[in-house]
């Protein structure tokens, strides 16, 4: 559905690339997770793919056709849910959706149905500025679906929601996948990515360091890890080490000989563990 080749992006005053030669493809009907810590280049990539930022260098293909310019056909086909709840505070929830619906060239979804879908039907005629942050986030999510998008870009759409609403949004995302919607999910929440994504890409310092399905990643890294907690100079330290990597095996021996071990567990790697393992960087 979407193919990205050697994409670069640098902000005006920066010497470093925010996006540094990344390449990936997303299949039709797939949920593709774009994971990384803050400042890794996730949002910049999404902004390029949604036409907010220009393509400085690199190529983007949609259904094998190179996108030279983001035109109306493209904007009619995509939906974007922003991390920040960017809504008109003085308009009601329904008016917000109706206004954005009026911008599209093709028939759109009913705003009432969408509000009902995200459990905001009772607040449809309330000013959006009076919504809680979670309600605003659900309104932004509903807005991204107004044109029945073929490609949906979600930026931290589930993060920050209370558990019951997070479940609701995740169910809608799963339902959209069944309807063959292609979803580009940007998040730093590995649990959400693990639950929803068909494949994930780890991005760190503007570069993609790994792409695979969560299952394959866990098969590759899981059951071969050991988590050791030990005391060192009065502090409790934690290390996750591979049971197959020679360097890690040597480190395990070293710790058992020199440190006071408090706990030791073999474990299945989470995506977060794998990310830390691959990039050496916490997600925070």
């Amino acid at each position: 559905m979407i193919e990205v080749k050697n994409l670069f992006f640098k902000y005006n005053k920066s010497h470093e690339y925010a996006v540094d030669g990344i390449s990936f493809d997303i299949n039709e009907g797939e949920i593709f997770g774009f994971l990384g810590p803050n400042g890794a280049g996730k949002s910049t990539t999404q902004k390029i793919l949604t036409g907010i930022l220009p393509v400085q260098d690199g190529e983007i293909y949609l259904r094998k056709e190179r996108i030279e310019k983001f035109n109306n056909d493209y904007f009619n086909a995509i939906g974007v849910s922003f991390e920040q709840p960017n809504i008109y505070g003085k308009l009601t929830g329904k008016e917000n959706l109706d206004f954005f619906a009026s911008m599209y060239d093709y028939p759109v979804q009913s705003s009432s149905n969408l509000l009902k879908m995200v459990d905001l039907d009772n607040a449809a005629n309330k000013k959006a500025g009076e919504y809680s942050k979670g309600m605003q986030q659900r309104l932004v999510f509903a807005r991204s679906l107004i044109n029945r998008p073929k490609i949906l870009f979600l930026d931290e759409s589930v993060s920050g929601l209370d558990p019951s609403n997070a479940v609701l949004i995740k169910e809608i995302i799963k339902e959209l996948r069944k309807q063959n919607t292609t979803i580009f999910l940007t998040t730093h929440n590995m649990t959400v990515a693990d639950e929803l994504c068909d494949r994930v890409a780890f991005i760190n310092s503007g570069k993609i360091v790994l792409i695979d399905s969560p299952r394959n990643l866990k098969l590759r890294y899981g059951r071969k890890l050991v988590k050791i907690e030990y005391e060192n100079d009065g502090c409790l330290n934690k290390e996750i080490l591979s049971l197959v990597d020679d360097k890690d095996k040597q480190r395990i021996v070293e710790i058992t000989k020199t440190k006071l071990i408090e706990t030791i567990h073999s474990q299945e790697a989470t995506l977060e563990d794998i990310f830390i393992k691959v990039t050496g960087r916490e997600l925070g």
Partner: protein
Amino acid sequence: MIKRIFFNFLKEVKIGWRGNYFLLTVGIAVFYIVFIQFLLPGFINQNTNVYIFTEIDFEIDYEDIRIEEFENVFFVNDLDELHSKLDKNRESFGIYISGTESNPKVELFIQGNEDEALKEVYKISILNSFGVLSENNFNKVYLNNKISSPIKMNNYMVPILLLTEAVMMGIIFVFTMIFTEKNEGTIYAYSVTPGKIFEYLLGKVLYLIFLGLIFTSVFCVPLFGFRVNYLELFLVIALGSFFSTSVSLIFASFYDNISQSLFSMLALNLILIAPMFSYLIPSFNPPIMRIIPTYGILFNLRNILFSDYGNLIYSDLLVILLEGIVFFLISSVLYNRMIKKK
């Protein structure tokens, strides 16, 4: 495109209504009606002084030097005093008479900023006083058959208030609207829809024109009734509002909040209201004033409200329209860039 512009306009109307912008507009108009009708005097003393230094004993009818009731004539003792008086009073002009009684030489001292028409009036008045122009060869020709009553000072202020409120209302409102939307981030949400930035901005421009026309209607109908050509009045207000809003959009694109933009906003206001000085002081009419677009707007408003001054000057309106279009296109480019920079 038309549909999107309409819905952008409708959105602004809803937001404006809930933000009490309409109430504010009507409130200001009502306040100005009260101000014009009850607080501003109908006539004020606005005499121009004429200083005369003569080296010859020469009988002239100094009353002829006075232009209607607007000048007072004073004699000075020497040329230095004449200069000093003129320096102290920039609204005055002077006459220096030398030579002989049979061949008098007259020099007219003017400040330099006077309107060309006013300079001619001074010259004719002096020639008249020396008998060069007499009743036989100097006729007053009234273009209208009726002699109009003088325009009251308070009514004369109406074009200025229309300029500062109806036409330039966009300046402060646009800054407020743009900063609110930058803060809300809605412009970014809009930028990923098929809607174009120029449609988004045009919605704001049309809304501010609409507010300007509401102000004009509420303000002018009670003062002038229906003897004014409202079609022409609305046309000038709409074009003026289009121009001032487009300029303000450009300025607002560079800032994120009111405090950052305060200096630019005030500077813009001061520049655009500057032609008011030429309007209130006809003798102050330097060329720089005439190149400020609001000069044409202000004097056309005067011509529409007080037909004695002349007709609507369509070439002025065309220039304002073209300037408005240029500034609007620049603002569209700037907002597209602004989104990509943030």
